[in-house]
């Protein structure tokens, strides 16, 4: 799917994350997390996996995380992508 407009999903509550996506020429993923030191690689892995599953190849994805589990990461990112893909 293609990201055609800016969208966001999630909250800043503890154990949740906020996802912002916007159109872009190339795919970039930026991660900010309160547990970045320990888990950035796992968060990134999860995000890359969802992006690949959705067939997203371009756009800017920004994540600010407060210790979300991977189910939450998947759900929030999918929601943001669906919102960004609707014309």
């Amino acid at each position, binding site marked *: 799917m293609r990201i055609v407009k*800016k969208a*966001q999903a999630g*909250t*800043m*509550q*503890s154990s949740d994350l*906020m996802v*912002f996506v916007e159109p872009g020429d190339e795919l970039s993923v*930026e991660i*900010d*997390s*309160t547990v970045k030191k320990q888990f950035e690689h796992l968060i990134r892995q999860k995000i890359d996996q969802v992006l690949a599953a959705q067939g997203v190849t371009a756009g800017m994805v*920004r994540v*600010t*995380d*407060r210790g979300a589990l991977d189910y939450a990461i998947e759900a929030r990112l999918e929601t943001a992508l669906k919102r960004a893909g609707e014309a």
Partner: protein
Amino acid sequence: MVTELNCVTDVVAAQDLIEQSGLAFEDGFDDLVGVFENNELVAVGARAGNILKMFAVEPAHRSGDLLGELVTNLVNRGFSAGFDPLFVYTKPEYATSFEALNFSLLASHEQVALLEYGKGLKHWLASLRPLVRPGHNGAVVMNCNPFTLGHRHLVESAARQVDNLYLFVVREDNSVFPFEVRERLVRAGVATIPNVQVLDTSHYAVSNITFPAYFLDEHNPVAVIQMELDLNLFAAQIAPFFVITRRFAGTEPYCDVTGGYNEAMKRVLPAYGIEVVEIERKRSDQAAISASQVRALLARGQFGALAELVPATTLDFLCSAEAAPIREGLQRNRGRH
């Protein structure tokens, strides 16, 4: 649940809560939101443009995550309204609460801290990396509304004293001449000076975020705090990136705010190893050249007198058809900026 506070009684309750927390209630916000419990307002926060502020949580409710709820709501509203990046002003002791929400600290002062949501400053600096030059470098921040021979004199004198001079043009569009025009006239006006790099300040110097009083109110008591915060940000985040060890400014005989800013530079910057160099204003006949004088002459249509105050590149623009709306605007309304 976070709700919008619209009606008068809610706003009054919000004001009480904000003032009880030792903050000033400022009118002119775009969003004011709060959380009620048993019909009582226990938490409140506001957004004005890209600034989040006036966060107050009733003491008995501080152990929870009400701040996170408020910030989520305001960030969502801000982004939906097209404001990105977002900033927060708060007391220094609360800076860590916002850092826990993934805000990053831009500058801190005895009474106030400024944080940014996201990595705007980092991205902005990264985009400017190609302009970074080695050596003994200086900086000057100018609004140039519009570019005069006075500016030219300042830039020439400063450029002679350093290996490279970074000329930051104030990006914020609060001036008679729009940013795009001011920047173009600066570039044209300094094109013959080889060691000058022209760039803009983005949100991070003399902006609506770092120094709103510059554009608003000359006698605002918070202006001093804002100036120092603006300079802390420059000294701690911007100057090291460009290896800037000198900041230049013109002497300021006319404008209290700019004069005060020069004084604030001398208070703040030396502690960061940045030397402040004031350069005497260039004079035309008896008076020091100023952009406000140029605007006054332009408003009266005295193009002959203008030729002594501005370089040919600026004069050409002032006389052009493109500048007609600016001339008309000046005739109607003559502001400080």
